């Protein structure tokens, strides 16, 4: 699950910054899947995650000339943009009414069917529900570290903090998560015994 860091992309980034359109395409193609996974883990809603991923890729393309290699790796730069886009999406979610559709969209070949998709999304939301009690910053750190595959240093750059701070946050977040999971397991055992 560990992905290539910014160093491995540095050559491609250099070409993209020089205006090579093919390099930009390749860069986005390589990173899009990672961005989507991270955004989906943060948001938990597939359609919204696709939109945010698209916005992130567009913002990334626009921000490429402003990237300075000395200020961090490229992946930390990318996921910093993605993190900001997620925040913007979450803020605007309340202002954006949801419209129910009368029919499910047509199923396309190769894509999971609506029922299968719903099952997958439900399973994902069930997993993400365990993180609900964590502060937003703690969730962000954990998901950047595991889902996006960033190192503590890259995570710190993406969140504009220090690596030591990231390590402490993740330590506390894991401790809190362990306690929650332990409590849930105990309550599950008790309910099983009583029944």
């Amino acid at each position, binding site marked *: *699950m*560990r*992905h*290539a860091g910014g160093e491995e992309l540095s050559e491609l980034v250099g070409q993209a910054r020089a205006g090579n359109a093919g390099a930009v395409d390749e860069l986005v*193609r*390589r*990173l*899009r*899947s*990672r961005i*989507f*996974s*991270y955004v*989906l*883990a943060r948001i938990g809603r*597939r359609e919204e995650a*696709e939109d945010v*991923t*698209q916005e992130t890729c567009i913002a990334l393309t626009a921000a490429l000339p402003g990237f300075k290699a000395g200020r961090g790796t490229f992946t930390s730069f990318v996921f910093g943009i993605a993190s900001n886009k997620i925040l913007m999406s979450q803020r605007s979610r309340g202002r954006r009414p949801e419209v129910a559709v009368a029919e499910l969209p047509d199923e*396309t070949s*190769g*894509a*999971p069917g609506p029922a299968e998709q719903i099952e*997958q999304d439900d*399973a*994902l939301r069930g*997993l*993400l529900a*365990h*993180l609900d009690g964590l502060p937003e*910053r703690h969730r962000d750190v*954990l*998901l950047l*570290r*595991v*889902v996006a*595959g960033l*190192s*503590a240093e890259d995570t710190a750059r993406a969140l504009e*903090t220090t690596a*030591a*701070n990231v*390590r*402490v*946050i*993740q*330590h*506390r977040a*894991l401790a809190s*998560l*362990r306690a929650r*999971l*332990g409590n849930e397991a105990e309550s599950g055992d008790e309910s099983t015994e009583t029944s």
Partner: protein
Amino acid sequence: MTTPEPEQDDPRAVEQDDALLDAAASGAPVEDPAAALLAQIARAVEEPTSGGSEGDGGGPRHLRTLWGTALGVSVALALGSGLGVAAYGEFAPHSAPAVQSGFAVPDVPSPTPGSGGVTVTVSAERSLARFEGGVRPASLLGSQLPGDRTYSQPVPTEVTRASTGSGHRLPPHAVPAHRGPAASRPTDHAPRRAPAPAVSPSHRPEPASAPVAGPTTAPSAPPTPTVRTPAETAPPATTAYSAPAPWRYRTASGGERRFRR
């Protein structure tokens, strides 16, 4: 965000958790329930068909589906609105089918700019077979071949060779003499993109005074029709002839575009 106090945490436990998250991120099995949960989330959000995390060309499945849909729409658009591409090797989006109001010729593709007059195409091969040299070969005369169309209205005099786009007018002997009035016939002199008149298809213009144009002459002025069918003698239809609807298609975003005829 409140900055945590590092001195409150055991540095050794902090380092252990850091290593634990590194292991979970790399896909290694972890026993810690919290790290295992995070690894499970990471697997759940990975694209099932990507076959890898990066560099494999596999983006999110839905994004690829969108691309595929867009490609399909493009192909359908090309096939639907560019019928002339296959026949002429050129796409002229604004070249209108020069179907005159007097002839109900269905499915007439649009001519290329260099094609000159009216094009009546049944198929490229059939047109060549029938009109090569102006007449159908003797072996095909009088035969109803597969692909032939039967028209209730006569074919215009100045039928041109569609497949070549040469715009050659057929010699007089190749054309029956009882075709309709020349004014309603397309000619090489008529503007190629002339709009279809908003009259009934059965209606023929009747100039007050004009020379009678023979079937082989290209009139420079609207002539008087020489042959009138019962439909022509009847009063004009009350419903005006509506020009063919523009070619239109729907874009991926739900909009609509049109090609003018």
